[in-house]
């Protein structure tokens, strides 16, 4: 087990380095120069020319601008590791200030979506398999296929349409009631969040829930056809015991191992849903940063999102190794 964890940790670090280089290159690709933009921006704000010069010089020094890309990358990577995410030119604030709460909210919502997905999809998938070809099975199979085909931003748009035409809403549903938007975190604010968040979870999680239902149903059907299930039946075990102790334990493995692939999709989904519904998540910030060529902000967001994903995958792998002795013993 220890070698397994160490192996995975090493792999994570390598992936992270590749991701950092890739993000940096991608974000550096568009034409346009950070310093020129910064200078223009400061000039517009009628800042004293001397201050402009010193600010620009400071950034040139700090990020090694004007030097070759390798040094620039090393400086950026080093400052990122120290927790300094650079400076947002659009917002005139350090990037970490902007990312902070939005990122944590995004991650919480993604994790909540994942949990929501499990709670909905596993029982439905099991039910569909146990009562194969029943009316329930047909209904859920159809709904699942529909759910797989509808991208989250279209669900969000339909939701927007319904709330605008049916309920006469003039603004978009947010995460909080108006009185709590700027309030500090408190129990009341949390309860208020719970009241609003389920819609978001539903919209973001619909596609993945649907495909999890399909996988769960297929795996459960496979497992129920295994000889050891017949053995269990012949031993006279109760149906509940057969389904939960014998079938579910094996059938759930592909679902757990697919968390690693679900998480990026959920993050992508929440990005665009947040843009459509203007939620205070990381999505709109990233879009603005990319549009405004806000290099360091965009880059940091990309890296942090991927870091969250890699950690998520790592945890999923650990869970899988803990659940399935075959994986644990192999390494």
């Amino acid at each position: 087990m220890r070698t397994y964890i160490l192996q995975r940790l090493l792999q994570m670090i390598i992936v992270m380095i590749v991701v950092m280089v890739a993000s940096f290159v991608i974000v550096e690709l568009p034409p346009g120069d950070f310093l020129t933009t910064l200078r223009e921006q400061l000039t517009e704000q009628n800042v004293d020319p001397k201050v402009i010069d010193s600010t620009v010089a400071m950034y040139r020094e700090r990020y090694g601008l004007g030097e070759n890309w390798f040094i620039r990358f090393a400086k950026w990577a080093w400052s990122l590791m120290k927790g300094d995410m650079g400076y947002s030119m659009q917002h005139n604030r350090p990037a970490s200030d902007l990312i902070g709460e939005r990122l944590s909210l995004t991650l919480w919502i993604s994790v909540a979506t994942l949990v929501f997905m499990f709670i909905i999809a596993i029982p439905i998938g099991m039910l569909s398999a146990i009562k194969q070809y029943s009316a329930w099975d047909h209904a859920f199979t159809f709904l699942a296929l529909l759910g797989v085909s509808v991208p989250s931003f279209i669900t969000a748009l339909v939701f927007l349409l319904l709330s605008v035409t049916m309920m006469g809403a003039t603004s978009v549903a947010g995460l909080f009631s108006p009185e709590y938007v700027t309030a500090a975190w408190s129990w009341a604010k949390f309860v208020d969040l719970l009241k609003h968040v389920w819609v978001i979870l539903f919209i973001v999680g619909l596609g993945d829930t649907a495909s999890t239902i399909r996988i769960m149903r297929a795996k459960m059907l496979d497992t129920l056809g295994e000889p050891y299930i017949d053995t269990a039946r012949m031993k006279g075990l109760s149906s509940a015991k057969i389904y939960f102790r014998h079938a579910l334990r094996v059938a759930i493995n592909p679902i757990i191992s697919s968390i690693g692939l679900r998480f990026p999709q959920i993050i992508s989904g929440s990005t665009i849903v947040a843009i459509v519904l203007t939620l205070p998540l990381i999505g709109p910030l990233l879009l603005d940063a990319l549009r405004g060529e806000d290099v360091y902000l965009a880059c940091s967001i990309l890296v942090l999102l991927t870091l969250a994903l890699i950690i998520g995958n790592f945890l999923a792998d650990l869970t899988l190794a803990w659940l399935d002795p075959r994986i644990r013993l192999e390494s």
Partner: protein
Amino acid sequence: MDQIALAERAPDQPDLETEERAEGAKQVSFGRLIFLRFLRNQAAVVAAIALILIYLVTLACPFFAPYGPTTRFLDMVAHPPHIPRFIDAEGQFHLQPFVYATVQERDPKTMQRKYSPNTAQIHPLRLFVRAEEYTFLFWRSDLHLFGAEGAAVFLLGADTQGRDLLSRILFGGRISTTVGLIGVAISLCLGIIIGMTSGYLGGAVDSVIQRGIEVLLSFPSLPLWMALSLALPKHWNAVRIFLLITILLSIVGWGGLARVVRGMTLALKSEEYVLASRMSGGDTGWILLRHILPANLSYVIVAATLAVPGIILGETALSFLGLGIQPPMISWGVLLQDAQKVSFLSQMPWLIAPAFFIMATVLAFNFIGDGLRDALDPYSKF
């Protein structure tokens, strides 16, 4: 595939005994078996027909669309959809559907546009009308599938600039559906080449490629697409951007396909017939092309069918955010941009119509992919 079913041979077959035996146990080729299995799945067949229709209509959109994509009707801005009527204002029944022309008014209080029908004259809808001229595949014509006599007809309403939404959806569909096919073709090439190399060579090459794919798959695809699409030069023309966006979508999307191909190759390379080929002196290229690729192909086609929706949705999402296809080129995502604004949507709910076309296309691909997968499953009953 080319093995003809014995029962289907010409009746003047000399060997009567063989024919009799064939009557007893009908023999069908592998390809035909898959086809027959596919036909049994009604949902997949309906989806296949629907998809053929979607592609036909969007490819020949200048004919099926009543107007051009940029034709503006300035007095019909934000016009709600016309519903073809059969019964006129006097309660008389007409066999041929018709529409009323409308007059634009302003609500004196809210200043909102209102359209009231002018019931004095009916405008029957006709098939094969001569209207705007267009060029389709070097072929000039002015024939359109339908149109109203003496009036404009917007079956799905008009947008904020007085353009027919249905026509724009058909023209946009041409781009959106093509992106899916071209994108998957590129993904398929990359996936097959890289997947086969990885699976067949094994060892260090395999590990490096697999780790590479893991890195690719661990990026959240949408943020990555967003970042990449902004790296495209802005001054390029729309066609170039379109091609680059397609390439970009497939570059992020080939990882899954490569994994499928690798798994298949890994299983196949230890088969006896591959070994036999190698022993008789077949080189790697020959074995891969002649023995492993054909055996892979059917599963790869299923995986590719199921990958098309991802690429179509990727393009739609990017264009929807304004990072994909650039005007004057239109795609379903570009059309949905208008629906993003709450103020537009509340007054013109029909702007969401492109979403249903996207859903129909994606649903069709998923049904067909499912049907193909079931048909190819060697363990499925027949």
